[in-house]
């Protein structure tokens, strides 16, 4: 009886974890978009320097995305002469494991990083807007996938557990 319960609980947990990972990506993409929005505001209205703007973007977001922005800001402020592009690349490399983002999401961010430090304000804002649009598209896609797959995995966990119990009985 106890064994059956254990099997059921653990299979449900596995199902839930997989379901969560499907929901985490759209969540993080949304955070990312918000962070970029903060960045855009800082750049367009306050003309804040990039390291400080990145820090503010980190401050205004949560979880792993906040950590990512703080990391980029740190790389830029430290005395190891990284350009914006290098700092983004390195921070993404370091934080990729803790993010639920896909390779394609990372590409969008890297594309954006090329524009930093080499273009004027209008151009910079254009790039930021573009990145946000791409991210929004990804987010919508990810949401659809998540909506479809998350309940599926939850049920699957439950059913898998139940079926093993039935089989063993």
């Amino acid at each position, binding site marked *: 009886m106890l064994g059956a319960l254990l099997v059921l609980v653990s299979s449900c947990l596995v199902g839930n974890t997989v379901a969560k990972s499907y929901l985490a990506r759209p969540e993080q993409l949304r955070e990312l978009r918000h962070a970029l929005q903060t960045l855009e505001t800082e*750049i367009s209205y306050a*003309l804040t*320097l*990039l390291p400080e703007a990145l820090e503010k973007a980190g401050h205004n977001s949560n979880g792993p995305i906040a950590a990512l922005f703080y990391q980029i800001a740190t790389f*830029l402020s430290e005395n190891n*002469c990284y350009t914006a592009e290098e*700092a983004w690349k390195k921070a993404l490399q370091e934080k990729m494991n803790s993010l639920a983002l896909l390779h394609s999401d990372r590409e969008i961010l890297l594309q954006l990083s090329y524009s930093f*430090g080499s273009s004027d304000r209008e151009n910079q804002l254009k790039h930021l807007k573009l990145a946000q649009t791409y991210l929004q598209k990804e987010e919508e896609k990810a949401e659809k996938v998540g909506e479809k797959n998350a309940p599926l995995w939850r049920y699957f966990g439950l059913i898998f557990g139940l079926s093993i119990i039935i089989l063993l009985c």
Partner: protein
Amino acid sequence: MLEIRQTLERQIYPFFTLALRECLEKIDACLWDEIQEIRLRINKPVVLVIGQGDLITDYIVTQEEMGKLLQLLSRSSLYALAEELRNGYLTLPGGHRVGVVGQGVLEQGRVKTLKNISGLNVRISREIKGAADKLLPYLVSANGDIYHTLLVSPPQAGKTTLLRDIARQLSSGCQLFSGVKVGIVDERSEIAACYQGIAQRDVGLRTDILDACPKAEGMMMLIRSMSPQILLTDEIGRKEDLLAIEEAVNSGVKVITSAHGCNWEDLQKRPTLSDILAKRIFQRLIFLSTREGPGTIEKILNNQGGEVRC
């Protein structure tokens, strides 16, 4: 010697590439203290202006490196520095100035910004507290009034350093003088060396700074809003500057400022300046040279053209 080395390491190195830092590290230690400018040009060796001479290093700056340097110097934020770039310089924390040359981008006949940057000149800013010690007795009258003063010298003779120290001593107070409110209009961010609006140099505790504001407009703004007793600005020469100075003088504010020139005759030849001189506004004209190092006082005249000795 240690001091300038520390300044370089803390305030300038973070903006340099590793290779460039290495190049500077190779320089003879006894020359460090004298470094005034670091000149970087694409495909040319790095030249250091040391004292009165140049030191040509064997390190060549590539185009790629220049791009990276510009990113580092602007902290990857060129978008925020368009206005500064348009004027041809960037300011670093610590008040160091980086002159920039390249290709102008025009918009309606005016320079909008610079592109294809080809040369940088890193000017290391020094703060010399007490630089104005010798000069101050000439600026304060027997009953404690400040004279309207014009400092005159060719470039690099220490005008700005002197102005900065005058501001500090008059504002915080010194032996001769208890402090008063000082307003600085720092059009080119040289006197107070503001970085992001915060003064990087000690310009005194009763000093208000209008950073990066045109002189004439800035002077009027300060008079209206901050009630300064002394207005300090540098390198006057335009017509509107003259009007603003007259306005300030008539509102009872003392004006201390500077102009380029070598001697009395030079000033007379410059149309706007000769007008100011003809009005005999400035009660003290101080001529500086580099004869015995920057800031050598050559001659001090009163508004009648007579020489003043203490």
